[in-house]
């Protein structure tokens, strides 16, 4: 198991290095002279050159990349070009906000979609299965801002049961904060439901069709014992893997949802940074997102290997 996890860790590190090169390359293509963008059209060429020198953007690309990455590794994410303050001081609060929103979405979507998928599998081929499968498939395809708009119109404006603003008043308690996050989290949940439910359904069907399930039934175990002890244990493994891959989407969905609900999260930061061409902010926030995503995948690998006896007892994947 240690070998399996070490291998995954090494692969994640390689991916992270490639991602940082990719992000840096794209951020460097951002058009325009950095000093000119910051100072505006009326600044003298000398002032622009001086600011460029001060920011270090007149150095060779390789040097700039190295200083960015090595500083990043030491926790120095650079200085925002727009706000002229350390990136981390702005990003920290946003990251916490985003994690809150993602956590609410996660807590909603995982049990709902697993129950939905398993239920569909147990009713395979019948109306309930068809409805769950087709609804999931359709919801997955609808852009999150579209379903969010419908949710706002229904729950926020027509029924007036949920606040349409995602930001709770300052000093609000835990439950109030959750209440404010329900609508944006529900929009993210709708997109993810289909994927996870489909995986849970497929895994459950495979387990239901297996020899060990038939044996369990034939030895006279009751249905719910068979399902709990034999079917679910096997069917949920691929589901965990899919939940991990969807973390990437969840973070991307935050960009759109946070803009829609005007919520100060990391997605909103990336959006504003992209709009204002604040490229130090942009490249560092994108790298932070990549790290969050890769960490989530590693945690999923860890859970997967703890639950899967084939890996737990020393086999390789």
């Amino acid at each position, binding site marked *: 198991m240690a070998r399996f996890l070490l291998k995954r860790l090494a692969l994640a590190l*390689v*991916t*992270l290095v*490639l*991602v940082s090169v*990719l*992000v840096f390359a*794209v*951020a460097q*293509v*951002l*058009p325009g002279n950095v000093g000119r963008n910051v100072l505006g059209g009326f600044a003298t060429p000398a002032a622009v050159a001086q600011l460029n020198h001060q920011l270090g953007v007149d150095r060779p690309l390789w040097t700039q990349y190295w200083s960015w990455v090595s500083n990043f590794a030491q926790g120095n994410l650079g200085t925002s070009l727009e706000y002229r303050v350390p990136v981390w001081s702005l990003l920290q609060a946003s990251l916490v906000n985003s994690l809150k929103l993602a956590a609410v979405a996660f807590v909603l979507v995982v049990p709902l979609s697993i129950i939905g998928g398993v239920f569909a599998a147990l009713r395979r081929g019948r109306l309930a299965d068809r409805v769950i499968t*087709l609804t999931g*498939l*359709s919801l*997955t*395809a*609808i*852009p*999150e*801002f*579209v*379903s969010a*708009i*419908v949710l*706002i*119109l229904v729950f*926020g*404006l*027509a029924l007036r049961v949920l606040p*349409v*603003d995602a930001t709770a008043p300052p000093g609000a308690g835990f439950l109030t904060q959750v209440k404010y996050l329900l609508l944006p989290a529900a929009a993210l949940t709708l997109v993810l439901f289909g994927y996870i439910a489909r995986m849970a359904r497929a895994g459950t069907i495979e387990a239901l069709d297996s020899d060990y399930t038939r044996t369990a039934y034939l030895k006279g175990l009751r249905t719910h014992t068979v399902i709990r002890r034999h079917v679910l244990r096997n069917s949920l493994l691929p589901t965990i893997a899919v939940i991990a891959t969807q973390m*990437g*989407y969840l*973070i*991307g*969905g935050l*960009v*759109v949802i946070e*803009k*829609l609900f005007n919520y100060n999260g990391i997605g909103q930061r*990336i*959006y504003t940074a*992209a*709009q204002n*061409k604040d490229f130090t902010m*942009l490249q560092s926030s*994108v790298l932070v*997102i*990549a790290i969050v*995503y*890769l960490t989530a995948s590693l945690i999923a690998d860890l859970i997967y290997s703890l639950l899967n006896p084939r890996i737990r007892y020393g086999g390789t994947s």
Partner: protein
Amino acid sequence: MSAFAVTATAARRRSARRETLRALISSKTFVVGAAIVGWWVFCALFASVIEPHDPLTQSADVLAPPSLHHLMGTDQLGRDVFSRWLGGARSILEIAPAATLLAVVAGTTLGLLTGYLRGAVDDIVSRLSEALLALPMIVIAVVTVVALGHSTLTLVVVVGVLFTPIVARTVRAAVLSERERDYVPAARLRGERAGYVMFAEILPNVTAPIVVEATVRLGYAIFTVAGLTFLGFGVQDPSPDWALQISDNYTLLAAGNYWWTVLFPALAIASLVIAINLIADGISQVTER
């Protein structure tokens, strides 16, 4: 291969295609999906004929609720929402299919190369696409569109390039199982070149997964382009694009319940992506049989 064998193969393929088509027509999900997509394609082509008002003309009649004169009301600039709803199909139906086509052509080529040749090329491409997929699609798209500047062409290229590794992964998996079949070593022993084996022998046998993948990707292309447009990095004003209508009008919801300005374009996007997914579902059920 003799001329006779070639015509026989062609005839067999044609009859297989006819059979697939018949199966598709009898699939309810496919027919419903195709009808909805057909309606929006019709709107994209003939919107200028059927629109009751000009979708770009502004009037003093701002934010009027739906009425007989304005079936879906008017937006904050007094433009007729119904006309914009009909005309909004065009931009997305130009950009998303073009991006999908780019991704399918590039991804198929890449998938054939990596799946058939394996080795170092395969390893490098897999690593690179894994790095690309480790970032949320919309984030890379936003960053690249900002770097390259707004234009329809940029949108097509960015979405097309981002989807290429995903298509390549599907094609590669199909090629990997296909290259173990007898006809591949047979062609190689005949002395065919790698290019011929890949494109003339393997490609015709992996079209089914490619068609399914292409339909699914089309749905996601719409998803991504609409998301980019909503964020302000996609289709630009004054286009009647649906996502742009939502983006322009949703901030008004805080001031009053002007639901008609956002609900109708939202339903339009939803119906289009659901229809494309129904088509994809229909095709995959027919081809997997």
